[in-house]
């Protein structure tokens, strides 16, 4: 039987400010879901909840335990002492991944030559590739990516698109947030539109594919502006 990930009225409040309220959605195993919308709309909050960083104040997330999860955060600053190889070796130890995987994922991310350099000196794109590389240390069937395209150059952007195709072919469930609407429309099955801490619309990405880029953006802005 196919697994399912369900959000039931999931709510999270920081102080008095609601970061996410009443989020409800269901995604089948193997779905590629793009979270799009306004800044502060609740996308990262939802990804943090799915990855276990924070807990909902109300509501529930169903089916999460049935998946093995790998998560790429949107932001991680590295102290001066971290090298890419050391940091991945530490994460590999936590995830019980064989040490040989560290070199393999570094090579996949194009960071093999930089493995012993300080991550603090990496470009934003290199850090994104390193953060993605750690999701590849062990097999996972639920992949959470928070703005994976941020800071990537054109070559690695194309590679990221290829990665999503590969994950789809392998039947992985992928939930990613992005501000790059065309990327979301082209690569996802479902679009989940966030505004003001709420899911304001859930759409089939295929429907948006027939629209040109400009119309897609206009539609998204309209959805964000009708925030309830």
């Amino acid at each position, binding site marked *: 039987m196919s697994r399912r990930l369900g959000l039931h009225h999931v709510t999270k409040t920081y102080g008095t400010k609601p970061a996410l309220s009443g989020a409800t959605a269901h995604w089948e195993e193997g779905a590629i879901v793009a979270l799009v919308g306004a800044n502060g709309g609740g996308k990262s909050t939802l990804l943090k909840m799915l990855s276990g960083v*924070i807990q909902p104040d109300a509501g529930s997330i169903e089916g999460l335990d049935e998946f093995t999860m790998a998560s790429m955060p949107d932001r991680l600053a590295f102290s001066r002492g971290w090298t890419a190889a050391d940091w991945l070796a530490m994460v590999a130890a936590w995830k019980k991944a064989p040490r040989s995987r560290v070199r393999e994922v570094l090579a996949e991310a194009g960071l093999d030559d930089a493995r012993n350099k300080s991550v603090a000196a990496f470009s934003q794109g290199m850090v994104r590739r390193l953060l993605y590389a750690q999701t590849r240390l062990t097999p996972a069937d639920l992949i959470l990516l928070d703005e994976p395209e941020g800071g990537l150059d054109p070559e690695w952007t194309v590679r990221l698109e290829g990665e999503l195709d590969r994950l789809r072919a392998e039947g992985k469930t992928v939930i990613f947030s992005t501000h790059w609407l065309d990327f979301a429309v082209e690569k996802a099955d479902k679009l989940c539109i966030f505004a003001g801490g709420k899911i304001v619309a859930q759409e089939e990405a295929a429907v948006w594919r027939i629209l040109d880029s400009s119309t897609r953006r206009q539609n998204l802005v309209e959805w964000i502006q009708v925030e309830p």
Partner: protein
Amino acid sequence: MEALATAVARLLIRGGWLVGLVVLETLLLTGFWLAGPTPFGDAFDRRAAEADLLLLTLTSLPTLFAGALLSSGDREDGMGDFYRSCRISPTTQVMGTLIGQLSVMGMALVVALVFSLALVTPSVLLTSSFATSLGLALLSTAVHGAWGLAMGSWLRSRWSAVAGALIFWLLTVFALEALITALLGVLPARWTFPVLGTFLVADPSQFVRVSSVFFRGQGWAYGPAFAPVREFLATPPGWALFSFAAAIHLVVPTGLSILGWKRRSR
């Protein structure tokens, strides 16, 4: 936990903490030994008391700072959130960080102490007095490191964590002592033992310092009321009680750190 402790130790070494502390502590201690007649003789004298004070002052401030910076850095950099996403619990995170920090700070202390004494009077390295001072200096490192982590896990930024560590240090090493001394001058004599006793046990800096005095069979300055305490500490139950109190001084700040990180995950 082991991977995290190793990583923290490596970060501190690469960040220059180990070399910096070894140089600083070796210079200060060597200067201190050269200025005095017989450091760490078997008899406890004024110089040995000053050496203890110097050691505890030396160990407490850098470890408070290191703990506060490590913990608040994890918070500001997003590393704490990343630990949670890798299913690393707050307990594992705090314990791993503490062990990594202590291994580097302890190593710096041992190297500086042994090296400085070996330069000046190598024979004292074999005395029990030296062993007592080293053991308690390591305890001080552990206790203050744990308090540093606790502050870093609750305060908002690196700056506020460092400020908190400095205030904690001034309070526990200097200000509380001055306050209690002033208080004892105006309190009735029968209050001396409970007030001074509570202060000496509850203040982590004073607890380590005074234990060092009592373990050497000294401490007459605290008055006759403390004579039974001194004698009791020399017995096995006294050792057990001391170990228990030392454990409390480690468990309370470690627990506060874990609570701080758990609160963030809610």
